[in-house]
């Protein structure tokens, strides 16, 4: 493993894309920044712009309106980029999978590196997903 990719794994900056999310996953993501879980231990930060991001975290069901925005964000991001499908809606579509505005789970639109299932995933599950992502 080269120095560059070693540093990459040590300093993942996360950009959070909320699709048609019910906001429950978003609250659990913020939980990871709190003293009990503190993902800054692993060098992770939430950033506000996709240009600084190393991880694209997609939560919420992706409907027809979100689909183009998600694709555009993926194309705007500097590579290498890891994509994480977050929550039941991000992984499979959850209870919205049969809705008529539903435009597919995330992995139908862009390639996904890790899945974190749950509705919402507990912070422990998020940390387990992070470990999976780091060992990938």
């Amino acid at each position, binding site marked *: 493993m080269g120095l*560059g990719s070693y*540093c*990459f794994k*040590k300093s993942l900056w996360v950009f959070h894309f909320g699709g048609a999310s019910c906001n429950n996953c978003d609250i659990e993501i913020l939980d990871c920044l709190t003293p009990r879980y*503190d993902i800054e231990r692993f060098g992770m930060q939430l950033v506000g*712009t996709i240009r*600084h991001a*190393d991880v694209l975290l997609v939560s919420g069901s992706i409907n027809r309106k979100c689909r183009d925005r998600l694709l555009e964000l993926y194309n705007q991001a*500097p590579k290498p980029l890891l994509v994480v499908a977050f929550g039941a809606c991000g992984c499979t579509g959850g209870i919205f999978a049969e809705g008529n505005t539903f435009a597919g789970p995330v992995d139908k639109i862009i390639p996904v590196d890790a899945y974190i299932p749950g509705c919402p995933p507990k912070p422990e599950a998020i940390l387990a997903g992070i470990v999976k992502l780091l060992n990938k």
Partner: protein
Amino acid sequence: MIKELFYFLIFPGMIFSVVVGGVLSWSDRKITARVQFRKGPPFLQPFYDLGKLFYKETILPRHGARLTFLAAPVFALFSATLANVFILLPSVFPGSGFSGDLIVVFYLLTIPSLTYLLGALASGNPLGALGASREMKLIISYELAFILALTAIVIKSGMSLSISDIIAAQQEGGVFAGSLSGVLLFVVILFVTQAKLALVPFDMSEAETEIAHGVFIEYSGSAYALIKMARYVMLFALPALMVTLLLGGFGMEGISILWSVLKLVLIILLITLIRNTNPRLRIDQAMKFFFLWMNLLAVAAIVLSLINI
């Protein structure tokens, strides 16, 4: 020529300043984490960030001025480093420097903020332009307070514009921060430092929750790594300037090295605690704060130092 290049590139220039600035940035993040009862990032985190940013792709804006966009971080890093060299050289080699290097340092310390706003305007991003306009207003508001504070220091050192003379004056007559006017100057320069480093409460030009990193919104990869390096160097240069002008400079032999490090860490601690206990100000509040209160304090300090208090 070789000697100057060594000073600029290795010690006390680029490599030394980036390493020390990175360590200071880590201590800033670690103190923040401890204030919030978190554990905080590992010691090498700033260098992991730099390594990763150099590893990543750099994206240029399609509708922007690409040359200005790419040149801005380079100028920011070089002028910050040069300012740091001029600040540290009189402490490292007593008696070096030239008459008037205080003015040169003042101008060099303005250039990084100026290049950030030029780069943001060159990117053509509307949020970047918003951040640039705020950065411009912030520069206008703090520079007057900064030059007034430097004027007071020049008066206290017996009308000398050279940094090594200012250090010598403090070694003879006690540090400037020990007098009443020195305490006022310490407060003024501390807040100017806070604004120049764009830390909370004066981070409205990047405001990541509001305008998504504002002036840095379009930077990615190596260009952003250069900006990060410039910011690390500034995080070292401005506290070093405060130590040099108000706390008697850095000693470089024996036990006084420990003393120098403690002075630097004290100022970083103050900056970090201010950053952690304050909300972000609006730009008009920040301008009012500097124009009214900081200028008032600086003028009071000038008057007090004219009558030697």
